[in-house]
């Protein structure tokens, strides 16, 4: 049982996850940011590794990716920065990024290295289910890594069931069909979708992401799922000076 499963067993609701892009705004701060977030009471983290062509991302994450790449971030650098991760951070960590950098690094090598530094799972938004099942799953499982699938309001019930079968930690429920960084406009349609997924009684817990920017959207998401993920809002916050010191304030604003 990895850290993610333990977390979902021990804490039942209001789970807060934060996404940030490694290498933004500067190199060699990944573990500092992670440590500060854990101390501020965040339950788990998604560390993004940048890609030149992030098609599922809006301007905020695009910008952070460009900056991170310009700073020299890549998977070698990231794994180097994460070498002593588990001496300082104990909450679950996911790596999030597009599939081409993983292909170039080598899937087997990537999974081994991720497990070695203490990563618990992977979110690769453009890794399709068929390729995951036939080519990737073995390496994820061998290294104790969870693969996190996304579900959108347009995902069919049949497909959600299949995703639930293939998942072993949680399901990432997108608040809307959109790229990252859009403001969440709660509507009855979205609430119906949350309710529909909740009523399916999946074996994996659901965590809601995309459009979670403040206490209001976080609280709303927590009514329908075990917790929520804040991404672009935190990436924007990292543009502040002395961001490390201000992290507790940021987390407090979300938690309310």
């Amino acid at each position, binding site marked *: 049982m990895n850290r993610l499963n333990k977390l979902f067993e021990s804490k039942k609701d209001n789970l807060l996850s934060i996404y940030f892009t490694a290498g933004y705004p500067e190199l060699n701060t990944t573990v500092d940011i992670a440590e500060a977030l854990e101390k501020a009471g965040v339950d788990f983290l998604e560390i993004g590794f940048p890609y030149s062509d992030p098609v599922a991302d809006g301007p905020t994450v695009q910008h952070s990716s460009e900056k991170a790449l310009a700073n020299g971030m*890549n998977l070698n650098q990231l794994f180097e920065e994460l070498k002593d991760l588990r001496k300082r951070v104990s909450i679950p960590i996911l790596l999030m990024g597009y599939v081409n*950098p993983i292909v*170039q690094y080598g899937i087997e090598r990537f999974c081994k290295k991720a497990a070695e530094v203490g990563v618990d799972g992977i979110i690769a*938004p453009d890794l399709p289910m068929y390729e995951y099942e036939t080519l990737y799953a073995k390496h994820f499982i061998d290294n104790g890594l969870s693969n996190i699938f996304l579900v959108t309001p*347009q995902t069919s019930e049949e*497909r959600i069931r299949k995703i639930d079968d293939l998942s072993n930690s949680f399901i990432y429920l*997108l608040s809307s*069909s959109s790229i990252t960084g859009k403001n969440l406009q709660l509507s009855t349609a979205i609430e119906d979708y949350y309710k529909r997924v909740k009523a399916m009684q999946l074996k994996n817990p659901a965590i809601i992401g995309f459009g979670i920017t403040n206490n209001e959207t976080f609280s709303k998401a927590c009514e329908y799922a075990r917790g929520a993920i804040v991404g672009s809002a935190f990436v924007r916050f990292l543009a502040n000076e002395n961001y490390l010191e201000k992290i507790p304030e940021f987390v407090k604003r979300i938690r309310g």
Partner: protein
Amino acid sequence: MKYGVNEHGYYGDFGGAYIPEMLYPNVEELRQQYTQILNDPGFKAEFEQLLRDYVGRPSPLYPAKRYSEKYGANIFFKREDLNHTGSHKINNAVGQILLARRLGKKRIIAETGAGQHGVATATVCALMGIECVVYMGEVDMERQAPNVSRMKMLGAKVVPATSGSKTLKDATNEAMRDWINNPVDTHYIIGSVVGPYPYPEMVAQFQSIISLETKKQLLEHTGNELPQYVMACVGGGSNAMGMFYHFLDNESVKLIAVEAAGQGVESGHSAATTFLGREGVLHGSRTILMQTDDGQVVEPYSISAGLDYPGIGPQHAHLYKVQRAKYVNITDDEALQAGLLCSQLEGIIPAIETAHALAYLEKMTFKMDDNVVICISGRGDKDLNTYIKYFNF
């Protein structure tokens, strides 16, 4: 078909549908419906009627007399430049707009490099009265300004892509983001044989009319439907795939795909994908692309906006890997010189994309009775400024 796609959307090791979940329903809808729609007699009749009466097909297969004398072989030009809107791109745009209408879509988006696909898409949207948004790299908008005006005149909205290299790959990213944000009512008309399955296959089928006609026309001209050589330029590779399609299983026909070397393959300013690229994932398919050791996509360069793309379609990647087709490259200078030569020997000003294919004739050695077909994928009106600047006319 030996070189065709399998049930999972792969050509050998290449293809598939590497897309975020947000695009899954859109792509899945297409996958489930496109074969049925394309084979529907009503669809076929409408497609053929529009290609004939609106596009002006069949396009001529012109025996290029002076080229034949110069290069010592029977050289034929497949005149896609004579199509309505000036390039082969209209074949696919007509097919996809009819498909979009049958899928009940109310809004069309497209990416464009040289602007030829954008113009073709804006044209068919005007024809059908459907809203049209075209994404175009900011750099391309500048170097292909006449096409931007044409799209606007046709009623399309042209949105500049300002990220990355501000060219075709970035326009493609922006179009994909638009599609993610508008999953229900919008159809994305991809202009080349790239993207997640079924796009590469669908676009290849719409463009395959080029080689279908060529076989018939060649039979009339030479008594044999098979030539020795078939040549075309390759960016993403749609005119080349259309030109190769019905010759793929005729192994005696040598297929030559000409990529853009830009300022030279070693110059750091090139778009010669098979020469400089490695296997990876780009815009939804596993293919060959130009990238760094870390898997970041490299910004390509070519004087020709239509070839300025860091990848090639997955079927091309397959044809390259199994060596069914030969992939070569031509520099900016060689292409511009070939454009001038074609203008003055045959009275045809070719698009700079096309000029790359023509330029490779210089590097070939033919036998006197060889029959050679070159796809004249587009006309050069849009490139006049570039030609004028280069030759100081």
